[in-house]
């Protein structure tokens, strides 16, 4: 099954639930009408929140850059001795 179909099915199930709610009026009508809006807004908020949290906790590794520099020096040394051209480029 294509992935878009899965998502559509999920959306359809949610809409069916919503229409059911509208018809049985367990909740006040005016409230049920607004539910899709809440749904979309909360989905958007969730996304923004995830991006925000992700940004704040973005894993960084400054020490890796230093380690890499050491590796580069070591590699250049070794390769130069064996006649590989690692001159300034």
């Amino acid at each position, binding site marked *: 099954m294509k*992935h878009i179909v899965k998502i559509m099915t999920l959306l359809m199930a949610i809409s069916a639930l919503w229409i059911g709610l509208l018809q049985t009026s367990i909740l006040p009508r005016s409230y049920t009408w607004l539910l899709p809006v809440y749904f979309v807004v909360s989905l958007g908020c969730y996304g923004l929140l*995830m*991006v925000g949290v992700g940004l704040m906790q973005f894993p960084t*590794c400054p020490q890796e850059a230093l380690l890499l520099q050491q590796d580069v020096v070591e590699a250049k040394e070794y*390769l130069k001795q064996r006649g590989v051209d690692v001159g300034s480029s």
Partner: protein
Amino acid sequence: MEAPLNTSKNKYSIIVPTYNERLNIALIVYLIFKHLRGVDFEIIVVDDGSPDGTQDIVKQLQKVYGEDRILLRARPSKLGLGTAYIHGLKHASGNFVVIMDADLSHHPKYLPSFIRKQSETDADIITGTRYVTGGGVHGWNLMRKLTSRGANVLAQTFLWPGVSDLTGSFRLYRKSVLEDIISCCVSKGYVFQMEMIVRASRKGYKIKEVPITFVDRVYGSSKLGGSEIVEYLKGLAYLLVTT
């Protein structure tokens, strides 16, 4: 000390696509040999006619390390990354294939952990992830971080791929699995990496992750570019309707 790698029956073909990576290719070859002592492997350099003389350096490296360990499989002109992998794969003699960039963003010191994870879990694909503990990125500005996080949240929400880092390209594949999925991938650039892993996950291949750190390129210049965000969104839509 970590347990020694028990990989006696496996051979690893490391495909490194290069375009103007004269210095980087020498450094990465040294580092691969340093970190994979006692492992049966070959390095396949797919160079697209780099004008900076990358191929001359590869030939010098062949003299040091042997022509059976470093294979130069060049192409006449810059034909793109996706086809470079396919080209390299044709010449691979190992039963496992590693794909990594030449620009030192992918450090060979992680190769043993890829191999170890594979033999522990018998997975079909091991993919390096920057977004778990032990992983990380260095050298990105705020904009790059923001787009990366945004792209990731979008993909996780809509594609449910089952892996945390979709656009990284430091991966180990079982050769037959790579041959199977690469033939149906048509995207370019970052989306290509995403398409490979999403298709693999849809096909039910076993995918495991290992943490890697990513240091933005120090030498040479980037070859990707253009309207990356637009390309990414198109790729996402494409994957939604085709996988």
